[in-house]
């Protein structure tokens, strides 16, 4: 493991100091308190200011925490906003794949199971029930795997006991970890008959501008429609799902700019 990066530590110390004494400290105060060379402090502050992490109340004046840092980690993606950006793309995906299409997110601040926030029926006009608001098991579904793979915090909070739904459910934490690494590497997840017998799912991540996974988009249906005999996903479906997830990510980035 490489050592800590000194300039990051120093920048963090400046931010902690400014946050503790907002609008009280100027360049000299910060230099003296942190025992840094004045040019070093000046360079760090200028960089932080350019990033919007600190602001000066007036030129050459005292520092406060900047707008962009104040909002960092606060404005979580609203699930209903996510749905409104997903509707047209998901309709198109369901229409072209002939499969039910869903978007799932991890509920805010809880290690609970992923929640379905948008659901488009399989386009065969059979009787179907809207699944919005229901949960799916993270370790046994493609949607859940994409969310797990994208969140270190979520992986830490996994229970040691993984529930078994079918004979194919992966319940060994070590094997799950290996599979999650593969999901991260390939950028999609496929699960076949690990939650419901005869059912498979294929999912890809929806990301924010920083690249963080904020939701999972997937199609679900009969295993033999989604996968070949070796339980590998059909390449054309894979491409459709991945393209749609990227398109929604792009729309979100534009809307939240």
């Amino acid at each position: 493991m490489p050592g800590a990066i000194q300039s990051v530590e120093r920048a963090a110390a400046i931010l902690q100091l400014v946050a503790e004494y907002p609008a009280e400290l100027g360049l000299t105060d910060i230099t003296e308190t942190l025992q840094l060379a004045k040019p070093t402090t000046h360079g760090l502050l200028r960089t932080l200011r350019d990033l919007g992490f600190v602001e000066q109340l007036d030129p050459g004046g005292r520092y406060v925490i900047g707008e962009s840092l104040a909002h960092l980690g606060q404005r979580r993606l609203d699930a209903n906003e996510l749905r409104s950006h997903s509707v047209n793309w998901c309709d198109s995906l369901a229409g072209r794949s002939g499969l039910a299409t869903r978007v799932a997110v991890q509920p805010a601040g809880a290690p609970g199971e992923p929640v379905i926030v948008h659901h488009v029926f399989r386009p065969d006009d059979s009787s179907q029930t809207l699944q919005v608001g229901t949960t799916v098991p993270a370790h046994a579904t493609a949607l859940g795997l994409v969310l797990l793979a994208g969140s270190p915090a979520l992986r830490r909070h996994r229970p040691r006991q993984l529930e078994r739904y079918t004979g194919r459910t992966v319940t060994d934490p070590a094997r799950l970890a290996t599979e999650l690494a593969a999901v991260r590497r390939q950028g999609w997840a496929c699960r076949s008959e690990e939650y419901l017998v005869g059912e498979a799912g294929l999912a890809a991540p929806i990301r924010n501008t920083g690249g963080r996974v904020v939701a999972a988009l997937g199609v679900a249906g009969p295993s033999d429609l989604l996968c070949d005999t070796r339980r590998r996903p059909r390449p054309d479906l894979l491409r459709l799902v991945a393209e749609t997830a990227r398109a929604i990510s792009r729309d979100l980035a534009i809307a939240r700019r």
Partner: protein
Amino acid sequence: MTGARYVLALDQGTTSTRAIVFDQAGRMVAVRQREHHQHFPQPGWVEHDALEIWRNLRRLVPAALADAGIPPAGIAAVGVANQRETTVVWERDTGRPIHRAIVWQDTRTGSLVEQLATEPDAAEVTRRCGLPLAAYFSATRLRWLLDTVPGARPRAEAGELLFGTMETWLIWNLTGGPDGGVHITDATNASRDMLMDIHTLQWDPLLLRFFDIPAAMLPEIRPSLQVYGQCRTLVPGAPVAAALGDQQAALFGQTCFEAGEAKCTYGTGSFLLLNTGPELVRSTHGLIPTVAYQRDGEPPTYALEGSIAVTGSLVQWLRDGLGLIASAPEVETLARTVADNGGCYVVPAFAGLFAPHWRGNARGVIAGLTSYVTRGHLARAVLEATGWQTREVIDAMNADSGLPLRALRVDGGMTANNLLMQFIADILDTPVVRPMMAETVSLGAAYAAGLSVGLWPDLAALRRNWHRAAEWLPAMEPALRDREYENWKFAVTRTFDWIREEPAG
């Protein structure tokens, strides 16, 4: 027409124009969109530059064809859907408009309408065209142009000027413009002019006399589904095969072909149309009878229309006026922080009440306020307002038509709001269904045009293209529904007559 498998829909809307290519399965293959300028020369006046809109279309069509990878010869038919009642007058010889187009939202002819309403034939006008005398429709705008633009009336009488709504203008330009362009309107658009006999679908001499409009400038009224002519530009040789007003196009795109089928488009305002079949239903509850569509060689299918002025714009007000939410979809998040409306009701009579009340002197209220009410309750009451206004129009339609609604087909931006869609299903006690293809206006134009040239054999084939994307089933206790509706109706009475003769203060 071998190899021509695609349909080009031209959707000329209030804020933008779009060119959309559909395949034979009714799936969108390419879409290009361009906004045009909104001109507000005076309070209450709204104008568009018809030439700008035509120029936009000239850029959009080649781009959409290129996106789809289709040569012009691959287009089997062109269909037009358009903003209704917007009025254009132009020179037959040059194609130059004599004035900017006067848009459907424009209220400049309000005093002209008041004056016309006192004339002895006013009641007969409504009987013949089916519409209440209002500035909303095209006739008084056309009259204003003839009265206002110097030389317009004599030139119109001499046949030098042409009148049309947007589909007329675009089709004339597509089919050659000054060089042999076809000057037509379709029955759905013509049914909004106030100049057509709603039964015969012909220009009515009494109506023309009443509004003082020269017949020489009027387009020929044609069925909505008919080959009007061939494109001379953009997609040379492709037949222009359908035209529908935008709300009628949405009804067609939702495949509401049977009497008793209805759709509601939820946008800034909302438009509910109920197919009433071959029978024209006159409303005694404040709704407007209109032509739904007319196939070539067949009698027309009629619809009842109820428009709600403020729905999505109430959510925008919550965002921009009150700052309670950062984006419109967040209204659902905020509304879900509470279990019910907390006794609070919002009646958004911002500019009076439309159907079925028609109270110009009403203004909005927030009723039932107590210290218990939070922003969450307010958000819920805002969404419920759209639901209750839908219920009022549906009740009026049921009463007028005697056709009880079996399911409501919905489209438009607000259908992404699950809480609202569930609430509407609950209070209508009817399933609410969203189709897979959200772009129902352009889809309707494409369907009509494709049907016209035989790309689809019949209406049943179009129905097979229609698929449910989501369905909300009613789940509310009848007693709760009735009690809440009573509360809403009571809140509505609180808005009446707020604007009084003597201005307050």
